[in-house]
């Protein structure tokens, strides 16, 4: 049923996203680009939410990806997206592989807190190593090239947009496969019952670890794209509030599916922008109220709202036929 429904909608969704630069004004295109970048970090967080684990520290890997861009530009003159994307993912995965050794043992509040602590350590280091990282002033990203090609300035944003979209597409495919694999199901299952997994001869720690490394790579990718999109990289990328935003967005979109976080990311950027437009002094409160409303009335996030609509719409079609 679902498999039959999905491709059509996926195509429609993809077509809409492809059309963005032609339909939406330039500033909205920027917002969607940034949303696509952050989506990958949100997806990383959403993976753990499926397993009932919260992380208040994944901004750490997001920052690793972003600083790969910053350092690349500062020291090595690197500014090619095609080179920095895999590098950022690699660094993200490498740091996650290291931190994950410790983290795979922890669950629930401790998992959340320890992630927080590690990300705040990175935050502290980025502040501290002022002479290397520019401290809070941050680093500038280079003007990106694409496989060595430097697009004309007026098309640069389109290049970035479509690169982000392409990477997002690949990420969606990869994560979709991951979630459909045995390990993906074990991840979901562990939120409910770790004991049964251990008594199946599988290691929950291994499930956590692989997911952690994957999530590090994803958030790293997101960081690279965000670094190029925003153009400026600061320690706040690693701040716990940023991690909190990721969790919030995952919940807003709904972490039950791969597409939910994407919907959440796009919605969040627009909500935040309009909140600060209409309530320049109370935009935080506006976000808080929306989040409360989602939690209390739509715990499945935007995705379930959409599913509800689709179900109703689908039924009507059936009735008509």
């Amino acid at each position, binding site marked *: 049923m679902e498999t039959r429904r999905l491709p059509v909608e996926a195509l429609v969704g993809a077509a809409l996203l492809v059309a963005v630069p032609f339909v939406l004004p330039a500033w909205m295109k920027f917002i969607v680009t940034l949303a696509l970048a952050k989506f990958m970090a949100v997806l990383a967080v959403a993976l753990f939410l499926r397993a009932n684990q919260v992380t208040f520290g994944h901004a750490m890997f997001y920052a690793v990806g972003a600083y790969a861009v910053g350092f690349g530009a500062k020291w090595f003159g690197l500014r090619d997206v095609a080179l920095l994307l895999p590098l950022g993912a690699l660094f993200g995965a490498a740091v996650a592989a290291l931190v994950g050794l410790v983290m795979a043992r922890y669950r629930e509040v401790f998992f959340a807190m320890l992630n927080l602590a590690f990300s705040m350590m990175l935050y502290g280091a980025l502040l501290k190593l002022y002479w290397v990282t520019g401290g809070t002033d941050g680093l500038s990203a280079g003007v990106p090239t694409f496989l060595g090609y430097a697009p004309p300035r007026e098309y640069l944003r389109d290049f970035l947009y479509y690169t982000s979209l392409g990477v997002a597409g690949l990420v969606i495919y990869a994560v979709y496969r991951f979630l459909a694999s*045995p390990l993906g199901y074990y991840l979901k299952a562990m939120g409910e019952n770790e004991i049964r997994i251990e*008594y199946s001869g*599988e290691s929950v720690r291994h499930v956590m670890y692989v997911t952690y490394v994957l999530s590090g790579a994803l958030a790293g990718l997101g960081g690279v794209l965000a670094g190029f999109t925003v153009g400026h990289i600061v320690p706040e990328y690693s701040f716990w509030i940023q991690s909190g935003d990721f969790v919030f967005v995952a919940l807003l979109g709904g972490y039950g599916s791969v597409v939910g976080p994407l919907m959440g990311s796009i919605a969040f950027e627009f909500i935040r922008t309009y909140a600060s437009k209409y309530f320049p002094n109370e935009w935080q409160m506006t976000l808080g109220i929306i989040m409360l409303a989602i939690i209390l009335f739509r715990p499945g996030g935007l995705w379930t709202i959409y599913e509800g609509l689709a179900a109703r719409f689908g039924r009507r079609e059936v009735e008509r036929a």
Partner: protein
Amino acid sequence: MPEAPVLQTIDLCKSFGMVKAADAINVAIRPGELVGIVGANGSGKTTFLNIITGYLKPDRGRVLLLGEDRTGLPPRVITKLGISRSFQIPQLYTNLSVLESLLLSVAAEAGRGTGFWQPLHRRHWIDQGLETLDRFGLKPYADRAVSELPEGGRKLLDIALSFALRPKLLLMDEPTSGVSIEDKFQVMDILMKVVEETRLTTIFVEHDMDVVQRYGRRVLAFNDGKVIADGTPGAVLADPEVRKAVLGRA
């Protein structure tokens, strides 16, 4: 030379504070045996399973599995060695469907539980999974959420998940507890048919004398962490000490 026991425990001891949950337990289970363990609540039956499968570490003594000392290894490793267990309170993935849950056991048994690229829903795994569900009478529920299963179904699925691992020894912890009296024997009939067909070495723990009497070939009676009787159902259940310990009357 007789075949090595599937399971042998030597002088197993475990205390929780002042309570002795296992007190010098010496037991050997040979291949193909169907053993019922009977005892009142708190007599140490579940603790015995927990120690064998590595959930608890014994204070003293050794656990030999298939002839080798495996004392203190974690459940995951014990399970890999071919010792599966089910639980008094079913340990299920309530957020998955019945078939998905079972597929995870199938994948684990195939040694592919850690694959993260190829799908879980592979044709031959699904066939295998449905076949197992069929054995346990759960096929009609395959696409239902685990949370929707009735209690009897939950117990059966819990055992099916362990069975699908194709163990050399299956341990069942109170397979009929929580199941209504009317359904008890139905559940046990299904289980015993599976065990017989596959000639699986099986231990099941029960506090219900009737069930043990009817299905056990060999019965161990537990009291205060000690094995107080070991033999045929008739002999053990006739033992006045056992009757006193299990039923509270001679």
